[in-house]
C-alpha cells in the first residue's frame, strides 16, 4: 500500500478528458481531492491524495504525466514549534483547507491530513515558529 499527496497542474486550454475517473478505473486507486481550482480558460491546480498498491500508484502517476498534466509530489510537511505557540490564531486566517483551526478550548489544532502544504501559514505566524520539513 502506498499513499501520496500530489499537486496536479492542468495546462491552459486543456482538452477535457475524464482524467480522474480514468485513473481510478484503470489502476484501482483511491483518489481523494483535497483542493481543486480548475477552469477551461486558465491554468488549473488540483491537490489530491492518491492511495492504492505500490504499482498502481506509480502507474497512475505515469498515466497522468503521459496525458500532459504535470504533477508535483508533496514530500514536505508543515511543522510548528508547539512549545512556543501562543495559540493566537493568526495562522487560521489564511489556511485554505481548515487544517489549522481553533478548538473549543481556544487552542490551535492542526490536522495534518487536511494540510495542503501551501505554506501560507509560515508567513502568517507572527512568531515565525511554523516551517516545513522533509
Amino acid at each position, binding site marked *: 500500500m502506498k499513499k501520496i499527496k500530489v499537486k496536479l497542474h492542468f495546462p491552459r486550454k486543456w482538452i477535457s478528458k475524464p482524467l480522474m475517473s480514468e485513473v481510478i478505473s484503470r489502476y484501482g486507486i483511491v483518489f481523494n481531492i483535497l483542493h481543486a481550482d480548475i477552469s477551461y480558460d486558465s491554468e488549473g491546480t488540483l491537490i489530491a491524495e492518491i492511495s492504492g498498491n505500490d504499482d498502481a500508484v506509480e502507474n497512475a502517476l505515469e498515466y497522468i504525466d503521459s496525458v500532459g498534466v504535470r504533477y508535483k509530489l508533496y514530500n514536505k510537511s508543515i511543522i510548528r514549534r508547539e512549545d512556543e505557540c501562543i*495559540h493566537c490564531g*493568526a495562522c487560521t486566517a489564511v489556511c485554505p483547507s481548515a487544517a489549522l483551526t481553533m478548538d473549543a478550548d481556544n487552542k490551535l489544532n492542526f490536522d495534518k491530513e487536511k494540510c495542503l502544504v501551501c505554506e501560507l501559514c509560515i508567513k502568517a505566524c507572527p512568531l515565525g515558529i511554523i516551517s516545513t520539513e522533509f
Partner: protein
Amino acid sequence: MKTIAQINQKIKDGRAVVVTAEEIIGIVDEKGYEQAAELVDVVTTGTFGPMCSSGVFINFGHSDPPIKMKTVSLNDVPAYAGLAAVDAYIGATEVSTTKGMAYGGGHVIQELVAGKDVRLKAFADGTDCYPRKSIETTINKYNVNQIYMYNPRNAYQNYPAATNSTKKTIYTYMGTLLPEFGNITYSTSGELSPLLNDPYYRTIGLGTRIFLGGGEGYVTWQGTQHNPEQARGENGVPVSLAGTIAVTGDLRGMSEEFVRGAVYDRYGVSLFVGIGVPIPILDEEMLRFTAVRNSEIITSIADKSGQVKLSETFTYEQLQSGSVEFKGEQVRTSPLSSISKAREIAGILKEWIEKGDFLLTEAVAPLPLKNKINKLEIREVK
C-alpha cells in the same frame, strides 16, 4: 457593599473569594447576581494580544569617559535617545536597520525580558562634559540602572473585526485578509478582557496595580486614543473602539512567556503583551459588569482596504464560533489575540491574590469618561 480596604483585609487573612471573569459567569448562572455579589470579592481578567503602542525606557548607566548618546541602537534596532545622556526608549514597532521587518523593537524587548544580552551601539557629537563619541557594548536587564516598560496604549476596550472588500489579498496589522470578504479576523479576549469587565472604569484608574508581562505593573494614565464616548449597549459595554490604558512595569519582574515579539507579514513588528487586571466586587453593579459574556459583547467590522463602509455587527460568541454569515456567505473568523493565554493570565492573577501576594489598589484618579477623538486635519502650512 464592600470597600477595597475590606477586600484587602480578606486577601491578607486568606479569606478572599477570587474567581476569573470566565468563572464568574457560571457562578451567576447558579446563584444569581445578588448572591454572587456577596460571595465573590475579586474577579480577575486577562488579555494577551499584539499591542503596537508599547516600549521600554532604559537608563544604561555612564561609561568612563561618559557619552551623551545621540543615536542609539539595540541589536541594530534604533531607539529614541532625545532624552538625558544615557536614557533611551525603544518602541515595539521599530524595525532593524539590517534585517528589516523580520526583527524589531518587539523582539529586542522580548530578549531583554528573557534576560539575554543585547548589543548596544551609540554615537554622539562629543561635548566638554561628555567627550566620548561612540560606544559599543552589550547590556541586559540586570546590568542597566532602570529598565521599565511604558506602553502608551494597551488593552483596547473593544476593537472592530477586520475584513477585505477588494479583489487582492491585503497584509495588515489585523493579519492577512483574503480577497472579497474571504475571511474575518478579530482581536479581543472578550468576556476575559479587562476594560470590558469594567465598562465605565469604576475601579480601573490611575495607580491600579495589574499583572503586566508576567510581573506587577500599574495603570499610569488613560491610553492614547482613549475613547470613552463610544456608543454603548444597554449593558454599558462599548460597541466598538473605546477606552484604553497606559501601563508601566519593571522588566526585571517580567517573563518571556507573557512578552513576545511578533511580525505581521508585510506590515511590520509588534509586541504581544500580557495584561491582567483585578476587579473588586464593590457591589452588585460591579458584579453585573464582570459577569458580561461573549454573547453580550458586540463589535463592529471594518474593511481594512478602506474602500467600503460596513455596518454589520457581531457578538464575540459568533466570532469565536469559527465562522459567521456575512454578505450572504459563511465566512471563516480567526482570532489574533490569544484567548488561552488570557485565561492563563486571569488564572495566575487569581492565584497571586489568593496567596495574599497581590493586594488591590484604590485608583488615585479615574480614567476620563469624556474625551473627544480628533482627526488629523491636513491644514495649509504657512
